[in-house]
């Protein structure tokens, strides 16, 4: 049952991503990307990352994509103009590199399987089956992220806050006509 739901959302995510990169109108592309992000949120929940799934909907689909749609509206790019697809050579190169990347990753997986697979190589660090779900039940979906975030990763967390401040100031400086 779990796998069926997973495959359903995976297929939806891949189809939406494909439509996102092939639609001519920027608004249509943005809305298909929102659909991909929602499907990924569902997959995150299936992979025992409930809080990340919620963040995905709130931050990505809710905030970042609204920013994209706002800029598309501001620049008046919504109506379908002439296509911005590259010519047949560019399309062939994009297809070849995309397929090549998938094949490369697949070969990487085959190599890993030949050397005993992921499970054998990481046996030393691996949690027992279903351990993350049990930890979530014991500490709460936010608790399992909050504990490492505010202990082990406290410095990166603070650096992130500085990064966000820099981004806010930078966006204002870039977008303002004259300061």
């Amino acid at each position, binding site marked *: 049952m779990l796998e069926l739901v997973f495959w359903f959302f995976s297929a939806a995510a891949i189809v939406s991503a494909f439509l996102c*990169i092939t639609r001519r109108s920027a608004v249509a*592309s943005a809305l298909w990307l929102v659909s991909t992000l929602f499907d990924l949120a569902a997959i*995150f929940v299936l992979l025992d990352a409930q809080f990340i799934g919620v963040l995905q909907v709130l931050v*990505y689909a809710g905030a970042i994509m609204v920013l*994209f749609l706002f800029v598309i509206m501001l620049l008046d790019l919504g109506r379908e103009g002439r296509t911005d697809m*590259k010519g047949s050579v560019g399309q062939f190169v994009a297809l070849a590199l995309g397929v090549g*990347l998938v094949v490369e990753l697949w070969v990487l997986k085959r190599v890993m399987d030949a050397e005993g697979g992921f499970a054998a190589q990481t046996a030393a660090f*691996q949690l027992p089956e279903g351990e993350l779900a049990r930890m979530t039940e014991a500490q709460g979906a936010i608790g399992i992220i909050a504990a490492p975030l505010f202990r082990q990763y406290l410095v990166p967390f603070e650096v992130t806050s500085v990064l966000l401040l820099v981004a*806010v100031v930078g*966006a204002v400086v870039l977008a303002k006509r004259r300061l």
Partner: protein
Amino acid sequence: MLLGPALGVSAILFSLGVAGVLLRRNVIIIFMCIELMLNAANLAFVAFAQQLGPEGQVIVFFVMAVAAAEAAVGLAIILAIFRHRQTVDLGDINLLRG
């Protein structure tokens, strides 16, 4: 055990993002393809986190923060370029070409 399938989906989504960047000339759509690639990486992190502990989810948290900062600055740059050149087509933006 959804690790293998999740990594496969992640690889396909990342490749679709790469293909989108190479295929399109509209800067905003290229930007959305970059977001797609970041999300594919997030999916891999979450899939590994299920096996190796919740630190992977913490990394996803950081990736999301960086993606938000990147979107804010990138879209501001696109606005600034559009104000000067009245276009978002990468074929027409060739300031750095000698």
